[in-house]
């Protein structure tokens, strides 16, 4: 029984067999109630949290709190790779539009194409909703760029304007310590200075 639980814990990121052992003994010897609460919360969460029917982020209800919020600007649609990306953008507090969550990024070599990513669902959404701008917030990786390009083509079909989040030197960062690829990217994406004044 303990061995089975150990294996289950090992599936978590950052947990090896040793840490799993520590968790299990801690719960068994010092905190049985905590263990039972954890089991209950885990079961409940795993059973009840599904994907939002509209944006596909994780949600207890059919529509997540963002999609259900009428005050959000539904003409803007920000496309991200994972639900954690939504969390990151929401924390910045500068965006008030809607989201769409992909199941990762396009990776042809791993057999992940448009259908596997949920891009068909994105297309159906574009057909029924009045989106005027798609914000491509996929990662600045090769796979993220390919994904962005694919969605750009999709949006073009529906005559929707696409924008891409800017990538470059991190705030507070110094050029000397920035890698050359980031510098090249930042230079090619430079903006007119007068927008700042």
């Amino acid at each position, binding site marked *: 029984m303990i061995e089975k639980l150990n294996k289950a814990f090992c599936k978590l990121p*950052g947990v090896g067999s040793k840490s799993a052992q520590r968790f299990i003994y801690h719960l068994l010897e010092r905190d049985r109630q905590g263990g039972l609460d954890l089991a209950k919360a885990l079961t409940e969460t795993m059973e009840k949290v599904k994907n939002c029917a509209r944006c596909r982020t994780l949600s207890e209800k059919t529509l997540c709190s963002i999609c259900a919020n009428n005050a959000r600007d539904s003409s803007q649609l920000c496309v991200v790779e994972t639900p954690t990306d939504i969390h990151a953008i929401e924390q910045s507090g500068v965006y008030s539009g809607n989201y769409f969550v992909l199941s990762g990024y396009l990776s*042809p*070599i791993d057999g992940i*194409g448009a259908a596997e990513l949920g891009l068909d669902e994105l297309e159906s959404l574009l057909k029924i909703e009045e989106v005027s701008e798609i914000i491509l917030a996929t990662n600045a990786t*090769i796979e993220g760029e390919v994904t962005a390009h694919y969605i750009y*083509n999709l949006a073009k*079909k529906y005559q929707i304007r696409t924008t891409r989040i800017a990538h470059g030197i991190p705030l507070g960062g110094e050029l000397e310590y920035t890698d050359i690829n980031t510098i*090249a*990217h930042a230079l*090619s994406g430079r903006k007119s200075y007068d927008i700042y004044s």
Partner: protein
Amino acid sequence: MTKIELTPAFLIHRRMYQDSSLLLDFFTRNYGKIRLVARGARSNKTSLQMFQRLNISFKGRSELKNLTNWESSDQPRRFLGNDLVLAIYTNELLSRLLPEAEKHQKVFDGYWHYLIMINEQSDAEKEYSLRLFENLLLEELGYGLEFNKDSTGSPIDSELEYQFQEHEGFVAKVDGNIPGEVLLVVNDDDNDRLSVGHLAILKKLNRKRLRSILGERPLKSRELFFAN
């Protein structure tokens, strides 16, 4: 124990491995296609770039060796849009077709040349360059074709039409779908004579050649060429 220091390589694929590591597929000039682990590399922000010539060091005893060091020996090269799709497609080709740890220096050099050229070429030139790269790859893997001879060994006639048969080569046929003229253009490497129609014929030809080697599972990157 293998220990290799700073050998020329391209990163052709990466995926997450365990918690904080990456599993990296490299195409090296001297050791062919190899898979390495980069421990703790996921949090490293200045990540390894694809489409850039690198020098990598690796060592290990087991089959799965560790990447120990790397440096760029190339300028930053960033592809966008369709150029990126072309580059991703070539990586899938290498990934699917190159056998593990088999040296293919001509393919390596051809790949680098192809990457350098993408940024400078017109759409038609890019397409032709890709066909040439596919031809080079197929030839190096033992599936080469002679573009100046038909299946019986007679010279290709620019006035005739041909059909490609997997095990025979180019068979002269009245209703063949490949004009002899197109084959001669490839043979002479004279792309000035190529029309858009010719390019489409060569694309179909290579698709057929690749399909017989790849088997049932098609190249996934083809999906990305949509809407063009």
